């Protein structure tokens, strides 16, 4: 069953069309990444799905409940980790978690046990009874995630979970999130503008630009959809032109071209194309010096689909003062 269904969502803030018909589906247990520059509509999508605001058009379901008509049922099924930490900084970590559990209808020994469990899981047990004001950025963010998990939600929304963290805290957060995604049978919707984060954590990705999903797929599919893989074959005995003619006829090999001794081509899958290329060349008696491939990174995909303006959009939409996405 689909844990999240989004159909043609629209939302306007004043003169800004934040969402202009966003659609996607996320199946149960999946980690889904919404990728895009600041101002693309990622956070707005999450706010709509978390029932903080209502759409102007379209519809959305989370855990089988309509986000407008059945908002309270959605709220019981989700954990929401907002972009900017919503913890009560004057309370302790444990108090924050206890209160969150209580408003989710938990109580008594079950709640105490769950809170202890989460504090251990997130590695903040030693700081549990300290006021959050003294927490490091990474600890505070872990607590944010904990607040989203207290009531064992079916769907967890993570809005920019590692923005503003130093590289070390980010890496350890990724580790935690990876473990979470594997451990609890949880559907996770994650927004980010870090390619690496999406690549590492998400099973599937949708790239959002100007309030629309421009492309969707697994990170591998997206990379393959763009350029495939680049294969470069170095020919020994000056028969590069012959080699080009042979390789060009092979299935799954595109845009073969020669430059000096180098035969370049794009293939859908290097693992499948390379043996075919090599055996075809060998059959014609053409010697091969070396074969190299490189894969287009998610950065290339992102750049391709969000267009060149994304750097400008990032600068214009960047409210959190964070450096633009790693690329």
């Amino acid at each position, binding site marked *: 069953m689909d844990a999240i269904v989004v159909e043609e969502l629209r939302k306007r803030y004043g003169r800004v069309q934040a969402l202009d018909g966003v659609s996607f589906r996320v199946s149960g247990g999946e980690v889904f990444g919404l990728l895009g520059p600041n101002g693309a509509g990622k956070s707005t999508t999450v706010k709509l799905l978390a029932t903080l605001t209502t759409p102007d058009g379209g519809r959305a379901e989370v855990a089988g409940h309509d986000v407008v008509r059945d908002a309270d049922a959605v709220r019981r099924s989700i954990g929401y980790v907002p972009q900017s930490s*919503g913890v*009560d900084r004057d309370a302790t970590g444990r108090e924050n978690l206890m209160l969150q559990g209580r*408003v*989710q209808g938990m109580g008594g020994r079950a709640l105490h046990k769950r809170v202890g469990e989460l504090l251990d899981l997130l590695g903040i047990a030693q700081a549990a009874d300290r006021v959050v004001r003294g927490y490091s950025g990474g600890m505070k963010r872990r607590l944010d995630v904990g607040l989203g998990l207290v009531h064992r939600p079916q769907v967890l929304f993570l809005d920019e979970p590692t923005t503003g963290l130093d590289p070390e805290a980010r890496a350890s957060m990724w580790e935690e999130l990876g473990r979470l995604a594997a451990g609890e049978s949880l559907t996770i919707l994650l927004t980010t503008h870090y390619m690496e984060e999406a690549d590492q954590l998400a099973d599937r990705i949708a790239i959002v630009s100007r309030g629309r999903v421009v492309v969707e797929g697994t990170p591998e599919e997206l990379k393959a959809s763009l350029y495939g893989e680049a294969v470069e074959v170095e020919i020994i005995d000056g028969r590069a032109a012959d080699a080009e003619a042979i390789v060009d006829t092979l299935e799954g090999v595109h845009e073969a071209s020669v430059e000096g001794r180098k035969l370049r081509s794009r293939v859908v899958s290097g693992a499948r194309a390379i043996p075919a290329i090599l055996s075809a060349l060998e059959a014609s008696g053409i010697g091969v010096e070396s074969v190299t491939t490189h894969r287009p990174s998610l950065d290339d995909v992102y750049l391709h689909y969000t267009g060149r303006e994304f750097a400008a959009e990032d600068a214009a939409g960047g409210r959190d003062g964070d450096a633009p996405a790693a690329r």
Partner: protein
Amino acid sequence: MTLAVRHTWFMVGRQLRNLMREPIWIALLLVQPMVWLLLYGQLFKRVTHLPGGGFGTTSYITFLAPAIVIMNAFFGATWSGMAMISDLDRDVLPRFLATPVSRISLVVSQIVRSALIAVIQGVIILVVSLALGVRVHAALLGWAVVLAAAALMNAAFAGLSQGIALLVRKEATMIAIANFIGLPLFFLSSTLISIRQVPHWMRVAAKFNPVNWGVISAREVVLRGTDWAAVWLHLGLLFGLSVATAAFATWTFRAYQRTI
């Protein structure tokens, strides 16, 4: 409804727990009302002997004490929206809004917290007054009325303060508005001096001043010859105003939600 009450209780607990961690805040909570009582008590000591009278007692401190309870509750209320702004600034509210928490509890808990503190301070003022020789004429019922007036006084303006906080969402603006409302209403009441001693127009204005409603209710039960009709009338007016401002705050909360 029961859910709203439970959630209000949780939220009041959160606010009080956090405040209990601030030793300076607690110290001022206890000392501030006594300072008012002693300072004003000394400053205006002799006004009860003014020609024209109207004080109902020759002991100025007896005249003053119940009004200080009200004044303290009133000023506390005008600032109560600051906590809401702090929650807004720190994005605590959006986090709660993604849970099934009762929306109304997020607003009402701020008012209840504010009124509770006013009652605690009221008890302190009454105890200190007792030590200074003030006797509450209506005895135990009188204490209850003074504290009820303090709670309603505070709730009425805390609702207003929360509503304004949700509309302006800026500390500096909130401070300006609190000052703008606070001092004029305070001086247009009979807190410090008998209403018979002030110019006619002020006497008329005071009739419509909620701060004065609170002062009348509280003072009537302390002085001899309690006019119970006046007590209940003014408590009723304060109650009505509290309901109205709580509704206003709830309405502004919905307006805030639409901006998310």
